[in-house]
């Protein structure tokens, strides 16, 4: 029986390699292992599909429709502002029986009717695209976050891989009045969604929820606005015979301006949290 001798040449060739070369070789091997491991980890991480192409397109379309409506209304609202300023400057308040004031009031009423007509024409398109976006998001949210996740996995998705790195990226804007044009808001949504590839799932879940709830509210508001437009048009047609500016008119115009063109007062300045310790956080073996 013969024993196979060891082959010293192999160990010699590795051990006798020069220091820097060996270090480079080891670094390359370690790097390759790290890449393979991280790729495998990524492959195991469940990805959520909250923004299919249809949602992205719907958002873009809604933004375009909103922009068209704003463009149409901008000119009318500008005219209304001028007429109202003239009415106030002419001291028509309390002098409604004056012929000149009566004529001014009728002009304002006619412009107000124009505004309502434009809204009436554009709102169905708006309603349609908003509904499409809402329905697509609804399906994604129900399936991806509602049925495929437990509360714990949802929490882990929101935290992402940086639970201990608290002072991280800026989070997507949460709900509330954004104080910007409707079309700008949709444009921003579109840009956030279109560039979402670089973001983690945690941002997407919040973003999708934010947009979905916004769409829900917008749908309801559009429905109510359409009903109100029919009533307001009838009222104004009646008022035209008397040449009266009602407080409701002024209020509606103010509301439309605030919704469409933003409201600077609506922006709240929120102070950030005080800076915390930058030290490496302690990780307990009990931590989950």
């Amino acid at each position: 029986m013969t024993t196979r001798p060891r082959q010293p040449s192999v160990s010699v060739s590795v051990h006798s390699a020069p220091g820097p070369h060996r270090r480079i070789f080891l670094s390359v091997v370690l790097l390759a292992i790290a890449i393979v491991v991280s790729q495998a980890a990524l492959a195991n991480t469940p990805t959520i599909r909250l923004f299919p192409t249809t949602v992205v397109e719907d958002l873009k379309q809604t933004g375009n429709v909103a922009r068209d409506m704003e463009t149409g209304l901008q000119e009318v609202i500008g005219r209304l502002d001028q007429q109202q300023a003239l009415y106030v400057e002419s001291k028509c308040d309390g002098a409604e029986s004056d012929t000149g004031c009566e004529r001014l009031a009728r002009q304002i009423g006619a412009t107000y009717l124009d505004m309502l007509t434009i809204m009436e024409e554009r709102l169905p398109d708006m309603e349609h695209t908003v509904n499409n976006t809402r329905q697509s998001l609804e399906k994604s949210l129900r399936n991806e976050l509602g049925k495929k996740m437990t509360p714990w996995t949802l929490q882990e998705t929101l935290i992402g891989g940086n639970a201990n790195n608290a002072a991280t990226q800026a989070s997507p804007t949460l709900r509330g009045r954004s104080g910007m044009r409707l079309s700008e808001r949709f444009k921003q949504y579109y840009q956030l969604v279109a560039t979402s590839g670089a973001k983690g799932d945690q941002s997407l879940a919040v973003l999708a929820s934010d947009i979905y709830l916004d769409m829900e509210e917008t749908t309801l508001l559009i429905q109510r606005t359409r009903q109100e437009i029919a009533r307001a048009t009838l009222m104004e047609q009646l008022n035209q015979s008397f040449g009266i500016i009602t407080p409701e008119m002024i209020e509606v115009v103010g509301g439309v301006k605030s919704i469409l063109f933003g409201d600077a007062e609506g922006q709240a300045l929120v102070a950030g949290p005080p800076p915390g310790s930058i030290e490496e956080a302690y990780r307990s073996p009990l931590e989950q």
Partner: protein
Amino acid sequence: MKTTTVRSAFVKAKLDYKPVLIVATLFATLALSSCASTTPTCASPQAKDLGRAITMVQASLMEGCHAHLDRYYDDLLSIAEGDPKPENKREFSQFLVWSSDNGLLSNRQAQDYYNRYFNIKFMSLKGDYNNCSHTCPNKQKVLFDMERELSDKERGLLRVSLDNNGYYRADRLYQEVELVLEATCTACAAGR
């Protein structure tokens, strides 16, 4: 002659029993009194230093006060609030690991005690069923439990460990969960 002998034996025996009875009574009293003196008082730790307070609590727990662990944990948190620092997290973790190793807490209980106060994640969100079927029908309760847990995190992260970033992240996570659950549950309800 015979009767005399028996009576004397009886008398003698009666005389012999007396000291035995006295000794037995004394011994029983002594035994009972010694039992009463070893009953643990389970008093709260009086030390201001967290490390010393933990040692005192550990001694009490080993003497049979394990039923008071909840109160002791609260006492320790109060003591740590008096001297807040990031290392307190480690002290609490080690104490809970010790409690688990000594069979005073299950591993799961130890995790709950620790994470409820010192982790960003919410233990209130533990659950094995999907959100549509389980979380949404109980959404208000889940959010209420989270809110209570957030106040415990404020105590553990902010007031005990000075981990401001951790607490603010937990606070933001609470808001995010609230928003995402509102949207998800609306979507779930619409699909029925």
